[in-house]
């Protein structure tokens, strides 16, 4: 795979070593440059010296709490994006975090594809690059959001509303894995995390695959066991 250009510089503030390592590895693989801070003091210093584009911030840190760091960041800069990543995951915690000036909030345990999706969304927002415009294309698959039509190899495919929304979402995240949590939240608009719809998603995905992949020799939609799904270009 060719080396991608650096998409942005991310400061990761995380005291748990394993989580930190996974974040560094995962985000660098996703094409981002990363800087790691293991304490609040270090984070505060690095925010000023390294000028990151985005901070992934844990709330429970030694020495200084994440919210304190957030307040200090906000006192100096309103453009620096901050994504809170924490196990404090109640609605109240979210509200507190967002009110304190965070741009996004993700509860632990999180799915990595979701983190990547949010990071890329935040960085797009900060650089002003717009969403990929329609019609969306992937190989010979085309989706026109204006006319709400899907076609592959020139022949129109009849899809339901839900299937269309699902495909649109997958196309917007093409070449990136999407987790069931992301789909539940963004496509099915389920707010509660304890609604048993994982098998609804799986069945819906099977049906979508039946329509857009099964009749064609080249497969685009893949399941990554334990992670979720990915719609990607066929490998050459």
């Amino acid at each position, binding site marked *: 795979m060719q080396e991608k250009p650096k998409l942005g510089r991310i400061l990761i503030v995380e005291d748990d070593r394993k989580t930190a390592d996974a974040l560094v590895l995962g985000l660098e693989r996703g094409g981002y440059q990363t800087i790691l801070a293991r304490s609040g003091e270090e984070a505060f210093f690095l925010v000023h010296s390294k000028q990151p584009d985005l901070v992934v911030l844990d709330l429970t840190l030694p020495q200084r709490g994440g919210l304190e760091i957030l307040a200090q960041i906000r006192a100096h800069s309103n453009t620096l994006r901050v994504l809170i990543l924490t196990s404090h995951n109640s609605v109240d915690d979210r509200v507190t975090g967002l009110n304190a000036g965070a741009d996004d909030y993700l509860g632990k345990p999180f799915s990595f594809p979701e983190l990547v999706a949010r990071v890329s969304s935040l960085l797009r927002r900060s650089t002003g690059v717009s969403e990929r415009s329609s019609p969306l294309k992937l190989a010979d698959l085309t989706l026109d959001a204006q006319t709400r039509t899907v076609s592959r190899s020139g022949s129109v495919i009849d899809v339901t509303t839900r299937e269309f929304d699902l495909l649109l979402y997958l196309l917007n995240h093409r070449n990136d894995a999407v987790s069931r949590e992301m789909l539940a939240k963004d496509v*099915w608009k389920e707010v509660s995390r304890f609604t048993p719809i994982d098998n609804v998603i799986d069945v819906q995905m*099977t049906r979508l695959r039946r329509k857009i992949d099964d009749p064609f020799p080249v497969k685009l939609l893949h399941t990554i*066991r*334990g992670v979720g799904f990915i719609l990607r270009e066929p490998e050459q």
Partner: protein
Amino acid sequence: MKFTRPANIRTRLAIWFVVILASILIVYIAAVIIFQYVLLERQIYHDEIQDVETVEGLLYFDPQGVIHLQENYHSHPQSRLLEDRLMEIRDLSGTVLYRSETLHGQILGGASSPDEGANSYNERSTRLSDGTRVLLISHLHPIQDKLVLIRLGYSMAPLQDRMVRFFLLLLVATPIGLILAGFAGYRIAKRALLPLDIMAARAESITASNLNDRIVVEHPHDELGHMAKVLNHLLERLEQAFVQLQRFTADAAHELRTPLSSLRATGEVTLQESRTESGYRESIGSMLEETTRLNQTIDGLLLLARAEATRSDGVKTSFSLFELVDEILVLVDVLLEERHITVVQDRDDGVPALLFADRSLVRIALLNVLHNAVKFSPDHSTIRIGFSRRESDGRAYQRVCVHDSGPGVAAGEVTQVFERFFTSNSPTTSKYSGSGLGLSIAKLIVDRSGGQIFFDMSVEHGAKCCIDLPLL
């Protein structure tokens, strides 16, 4: 002046007792004195009339026309001095014919009025010139054919004196009595409240480690006994809740350990020998699936905690049950289609059922129940959703029943299915086992919404889960 309220009930009770007793005594003393005074005055009046009768017989005119009172009936001459009657005899023109020595020359009752004494005995109260109060009666009587006016009275001073002395006596005696009564009242109150102190001491010693301790009930039928029983019931409920919590914590630890051990075992086994790339992918994928399961269990526990903490004053809104059911059916529609399951709804009453509850929670409860039904239904079968209304304790409830054609609920498991982490031992259902929290979450939500959830065991096949929810 600032009145500070005494801190303990004993003192307050004693003070109240004394204040009330004092008020009653004051009223009582006043009534007794007035009643006695009136009664004695009547007695004096009565005596005076008798005395007039006596005197009438003892009066005579001597040949010179001077009136005299015959006093030779005394056995001892000095006994005369004992008589304290005050008397004047007047002729009809008002001239005083006789005046008793006890008057010491004072006029008794002023000038005669025209028809004084005409009607038997006229009674009135008057004062002598020295200020003595006199109860006076006047009577006309002929003596030796000559009509005279007899005025006879007794001084009220001795009676008034006696009354004042009686009053003073009571004035001294009453406070002493009140002090004694107050002291006794305090002792009685202290004695009566003693079991409370014992109960308080006992209750204070009860902590999480000896929740099975109970307060001793000495007299089960009196008020304090009742109180002790109520406290014991409270302790019992607390103990049950505590035991449940302990069991739940143990269960939760166990439930979290199961996916953890699976994770660990998969990792260990995978690393014991080199594998192909797809072999590693397989193992890591399996481990990630376990983390999903772990995560779902934790989310379920958090949801339970949230529903548990929901008070009756939570975020309640009114919403249509029909709409909610439709919304859920749209969500699971793809599952139904895929497995060719038909859903038949029975809404024959047609009245839109408006519920009043936390919609997001009720949605989770209904979704869990319906999802269970879909999970256990065989392909090409039918799920029936029935709606009906019912009254209970004066409140209207909407019942919604979901009836599937799956293996059903075993008779012995009808209440167990709602317990946390329950998964059936029955071989027909064990292949469907999930996190074991779905139905307990549904039950908690329905309970907290003021309704109830149960399995209707009267059906011949399949499972019929019914939920009653309070109507708006």
